[in-house]
């Protein structure tokens, strides 16, 4: 648990952060619309994004951790060799 969190109401949190969350949600909607206007199917990153959306509506705290975990490589041993230096943002094996 935190050492100390100043008490605040949900209204105060909304006053501080609602507009920020609002524009980010609209940006996400616009991104999904943009994908629809483009040719081809979803790649694994977009599939991961879509798979995460229901987690936003869960009631328990910890949504960020659950989304990051969903997108994570679940294996536990080192791989023999990598074919890239870069990470894509979503584990390619996510179904």
């Amino acid at each position, binding site marked *: 648990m935190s*050492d100390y969190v100043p008490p605040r109401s949900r209204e105060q949190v909304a006053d501080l952060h609602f507009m920020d969350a609002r524009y980010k949600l609209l940006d996400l909607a616009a991104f999904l619309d943009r994908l629809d206007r483009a040719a081809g199917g979803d790649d694994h990153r977009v599939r991961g994004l879509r798979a995460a959306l229901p987690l936003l509506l869960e009631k328990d705290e910890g949504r960020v951790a659950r989304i990051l975990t969903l997108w994570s490589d679940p294996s536990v041993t080192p791989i023999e060799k990598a074919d890239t230096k870069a*990470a894509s943002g*979503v584990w390619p094996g996510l179904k």
Partner: protein
Amino acid sequence: MRYIEPHGHMVSRTTDDYQAMALAGCAAICEPAFWAGFDRKSADGFYDYFCQLTQIEPKRAAKYGLPHYSWLCINPKESEDMALAADVLALIPEFLKAPTVLGIGEIGLNKNTRNEMKVLEQHIGLAVQYDQMILVHTPHLEDKRKGTRLIMDALKANGVVKPERVIIDHVEEHTIHEVLDQGFWAGITLYPESKSTPVRAVDMIESVSAQRVWLNSACDWGHSDPLSVPKAAQEMRRRGHSAAAIDRLVYGNPVKFLSQSPRFKDPAAQA
């Protein structure tokens, strides 16, 4: 407000950034060795880089009144080449004598490969041999959770490393609790897109005991913000955190961790 920037790649920033950081209240900067954006072809490239970190950058920072410290290693993105890694590791002891070197870092993993693991273990061994602190880079994005666990396992398997002398950097919501629960320090890196934003960082701070946590910008040649630590402090301020709590997080905590090296001098004690 005063703060420490405990992780900034200043070799890839302009002097304007030093000026802006000093104006924002920065009191000291620490710079871990990292990937230049391309693979260096020989140990000579690292020799020059270590000279830059230990000789040139402290002078550049001093022009803005900022003490500059560094950490040395070959980063995990260049660790696939085991022969190159061996040559670079052989260089490091000479540079550990420099008065501003704080330890070995940022070591860790990138894609969680076997070779990266071997070089990580060699770095840990070097740190133990020379009684150095360790700064850990955890992998990006989907590789972070697995890599963080492999790194902590390697540190514990060494048997000699003291967790309180290790900072595991770039933690996020799915790794911070494990890192702190195992006794390590945790670094939250504030990036505009990847890793954590200042707002999410403050959310994390509000959900853990933050006595072993620091914030850093890890500003480099990519999309990053050298003023992200004071921006996180501003986010704390507007949420109602006290000036003392903010100071403890952005100044007191890094000073507490870094002062485990006798080379690091608390800027407040020098004033």
